[in-house]
């Protein structure tokens, strides 16, 4: 081994001890395609057996690696095949869906994993009868389960946007908020609406094991805003070329840690290693914030003019540094900007520098979308659908993933706060433009795919 210097050793040690570097998640993707049957009880049994077979050692292996390498691994998760497909023959009523969902949830809790994602439907080309039943049951499912996460893909660049599904998603979000009102409408934090969703995303709530994927796989999501922030402190006042290089260098180092953990986990679990998701994922911990990074670049408060540009730089440089460090990159890869999970974002929203509209602009250049944003509980279904439609179209036109995770907090209004706890943090209720879009949403139907030429 070529000897490393004391400075390099200290840098590594400090990344973990002071700057919150961690691996956010190792997520095991498991295909449930072979569990399909037309009998609900049999389906539950099949799913249980399959999950136990592949994931029985997931948490143990995660903890072993954490101990051996002294690298914190915050979450161990599972993603499964979109369940609208798996439940198609067996489930006819909401009660059937709830039964299957509760089975998955209880297996996940038994395995002691943090989240399981894949209560999902892909309806960007239109909904089947089963899809509609499946979607209508989501609020009940989310209110009856603890760690199960749900997502609906309503649009894609190749197939356009299904406005019937967008309309239904507004209703799902409102109903989920009402059914989980005793927990500050927490159910909505486990539901995402997507355009151009990737098949191999390890992050929640939007993870699912796409049908293009193999039998089982290990995907890894890295973290590390705190480390980028520290590096930028040293690049203060330098020009943009230096700024970009600094982010790129540090992204390389962070990603290498993810590659090491992922390779090791896959080997021990006897399944292939899939992808590293290069997203910088913030936490509510002090200093572990995307907003802090943007402000260090020279903004007084996130949301000020220049914010979208700063975020674009961060996003692009993280990818450039990470790509070289990883064998396979996938998932969402970029920088997440969830409001409630990032203390800097919370502060900027409280100061009213960061508005819903500015966040929407930022999502044109970030890795996902409008994420973990609390809005007034009395926001109408059609307004929520309108926000979803806007965000989806940004993704569809620009050929990128976009997502919406909104929490219309029951009984709360602008000036109030909602508390979710843990990694999900807390959020100030943000103002929503309440001029009506009801007639627009009520049209229903399908918006055709956009043209891929004449880009302006």
């Amino acid at each position, binding site marked *: 081994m070529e000897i490393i210097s004391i400075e390099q050793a200290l840098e590594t040690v400090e990344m973990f001890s002071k700057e919150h570097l961690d691996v956010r998640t190792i997520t095991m993707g498991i295909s449930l395609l072979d569990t399909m049957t037309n009998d609900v009880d049999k389906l539950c049994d099949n799913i249980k057996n399959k999950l136990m077979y592949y994931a029985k050692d997931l948490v143990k292996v995660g903890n072993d690696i954490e101990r051996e390498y002294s690298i914190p691994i915050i979450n161990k998760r599972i993603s499964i095949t979109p369940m609208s497909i798996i439940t198609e023959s067996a489930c006819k009523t909401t009660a059937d869906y709830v039964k299957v969902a509760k089975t998955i949830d209880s297996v996940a809790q038994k395995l002691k994993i943090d989240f399981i994602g894949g209560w999902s439907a892909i309806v960007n080309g239109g909904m089947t009868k089963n899809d509609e039943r499946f979607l209508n049951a989501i609020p009940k499912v989310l209110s009856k389960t603890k760690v199960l996460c749900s997502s609906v893909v309503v649009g894609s660049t190749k197939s356009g946007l299904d406005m019937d599904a967008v309309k239904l998603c507004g209703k799902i979000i409102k109903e989920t908020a009402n059914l989980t009102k005793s927990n500050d409408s927490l159910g909505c934090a486990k539901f995402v609406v997507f355009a151009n969703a990737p098949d191999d995303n390890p992050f929640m709530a939007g993870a699912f094991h796409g049908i293009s994927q193999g039998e089982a796989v290990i995907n890894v999501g890295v973290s590390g805003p705190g480390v980028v922030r520290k590096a930028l402190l040293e690049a203060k006042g330098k020009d943009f070329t230096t700024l970009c290089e600094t982010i790129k260098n540090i992204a390389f180092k962070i990603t290498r840690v993810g590659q*090491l953990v992922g390779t090791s986990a896959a080997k021990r679990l006897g399944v292939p290693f899939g992808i590293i998701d290069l997203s910088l994922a913030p936490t509510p911990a002090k200093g572990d914030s995307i907003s802090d990074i943007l402000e260090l670049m020279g903004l007084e408060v996130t949301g000020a003019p220049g914010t979208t540009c700063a975020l674009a730089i961060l996003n692009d440089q993280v990818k450039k540094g990470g790509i070289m460090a990883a064998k396979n990159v996938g998932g969402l890869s970029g920088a997440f900007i969830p409001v409630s999970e990032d203390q800097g974002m919370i502060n900027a929203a409280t100061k009213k520098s960061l508005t819903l509209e500015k966040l929407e602009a930022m999502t044109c250049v970030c890795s996902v979308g409008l994420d973990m944003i609390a809005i007034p509980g009395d926001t109408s279904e059609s307004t929520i659908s309108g926000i979803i439609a806007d965000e989806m179209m940004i993704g569809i036109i620009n050929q990128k993933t976009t997502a919406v995770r909104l929490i219309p907090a029951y009984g709360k209004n602008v000036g109030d706060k909602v508390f979710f706890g843990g990694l999900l943090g807390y959020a100030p209720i943000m103002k929503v433009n309440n001029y009506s879009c009801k007639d627009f949403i009520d049209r229903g139907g399908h918006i055709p795919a956009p043209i891929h030429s004449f880009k302006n």
Partner: protein
Amino acid sequence: MKKIVIVIYGKDNYGILYNVSKILHDYKVSVENIRQSIVSNYFNMMAIVSAPERNKYGEFKKKLEDYGKKSNLMVNVMLEDVFNAMHQV
């Protein structure tokens, strides 16, 4: 077996090297490379050492970390893989 990197820093005191060496000796671990300096009264050390006997790694790591806690020193024990991954292209 993989090599291990030990990084220790904190306010200087008597016998840090002595106590660390004693633990290394107890686990039949030999030092392959060591760098140590004191900068404005702060002790800095990095050592690359051989691995202890099979299945003793966890215990060895804990012994060193416990010593760190007792003596108010930052003690980090990591497998060399982490450093290699991060600092070598």
